[in-house]
């Protein structure tokens, strides 16, 4: 009885933690700055690299694939920054003391990082239109694919970054650990993009979309189950 009087409800706890993530970012501006700057630099480098491609189809396929690569590495940069900062300031221990399942902390971290990554992608898209001469707005299915792919990368990423942030050189370690696991997501995302770009329609993209959906559900489920275990001891 006493516990229920002092324990905040699930929704309230999510709200408080999410507001805390946003407040920290508004104060430090470290996540969006590092992810955004990284993505911009990648776009400039990709732009320089594709100058010689004369075939329009090859150009579009290559640039879109490279944008997915940029997204994946921007996500790694963001995950590293957020996990290392929290670890350094002992926020992790404080978060683990919450009178709720640790899965709640995982959920909030996942959603907040997803929001920041989507914001970074919005910047990437705005910049890519004039710089790389791409048109993203003729494929409404991409509005579903992009958040799904982000979720698929971030779900194992949030989990693994918690472990790798504990050790020296954890930034490189996260990249090594996350990329093989996230490749199925990348395979699904590039498969859908490729099918849409080739004008094959949603039916050809369906198996890849299914792969994306399965990966997202599986990784998020595993993250919710394992996050608490990873932070014990």
């Amino acid at each position, binding site marked *: 009885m006493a516990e229920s009087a002092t324990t905040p409800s699930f929704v309230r706890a999510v709200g408080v933690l999410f507001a805390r993530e946003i407040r920290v970012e508004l104060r430090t501006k470290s996540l969006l700055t590092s992810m955004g700057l990284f993505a911009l630099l990648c776009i400039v480098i990709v732009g320089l690299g594709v100058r010689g491609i004369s075939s329009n189809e090859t150009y579009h396929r290559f640039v879109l694939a490279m944008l997915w690569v940029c997204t994946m590495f921007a996500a790694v940069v963001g995950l590293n920054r957020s996990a290392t900062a929290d670890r350094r300031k002992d926020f992790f221990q404080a978060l683990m003391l919450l009178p709720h399942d640790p899965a709640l902390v995982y959920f909030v971290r996942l959603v907040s990082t997803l929001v920041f990554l989507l914001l970074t992608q919005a910047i990437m898209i705005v910049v890519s239109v004039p710089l790389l001469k791409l048109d993203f707005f003729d494929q409404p299915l991409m509005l579903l694919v992009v958040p799904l792919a982000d979720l698929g990368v971030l779900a194992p990423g949030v989990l693994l970054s918690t472990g790798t942030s504990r050790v020296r050189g954890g930034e490189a*370690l996260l990249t090594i650990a996350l990329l093989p*696991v996230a*490749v199925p997501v990348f395979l699904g995302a590039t498969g859908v993009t490729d099918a849409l770009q080739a004008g094959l329609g949603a039916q050809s993209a369906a198996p890849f979309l299914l792969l994306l959906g399965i990966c997202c559900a599986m990784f998020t489920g595993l993250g919710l189950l394992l996050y608490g275990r990873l932070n014990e001891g």
Partner: protein
Amino acid sequence: MKTNEKSSKAWLVTVVLAALGLIGAEVVLYLSYYYTPVQITPGTLWVVTPDGGAPINLYESYRIFFIHLPSAYTTALCCTVCLVGGVMWLLTRKEKWEALTTAAAETGLFVGAIVLLTGTLWADYAWGSGRIGSGWNWEPRLTTMLILWLAFAALLVLRKSMDTPRQRSVMTAVYGILLGPMYPLVSKAVELGRTSHPRSFSDLLSAPEIATTKYLASIAVTIALASLVALRYQMNRLNQQIEQERAA
């Protein structure tokens, strides 16, 4: 005393498995050269190239399947053991499960390398120019197998980088669980992209001699590699004991 008895029994099992595996491998080697047919019936040993060109004859290159296919099965087994080991460690916190997960990842790395090497050589010959040297062809199943192989390597790098035994055990278990569901992707890869990877061995090679040799090869290679898992498991258990004694 009890621990010593257990340990010597485990070593005995390892040695017996290794001996059986070696004998099996010799038998399969003999069968694959003297029992399976050299004469190729048109239609049975023909495959299409990834670009949908004219079917080509495999000639004797199909014999590499007797190593490639059982190794692929064993990689799937290693994946499953990683998953089971990870789950069991999280449930019981017993060190033996961590040792098993690591042993499965180490063996998976070795067997995966055999799958990749034999697959690449065969695909290079069969889908390339009919000779070795035309390079990696990004065939979906082979590529997803390469990703799985990298994941095995990542697990071993990750666990080595952890500072404390506790962190190492947790990360091994968690990554083992994440790695587990990757084999279905390798298995389903032929349905995702444009591929000419044989979907079923029996469709391609219907001769009864080939089927018998394939079954025997699968059993022999699985036993040989189970002995490798057992050997690495014993080594990992010894390392854990040494670490504990040093810490005490």
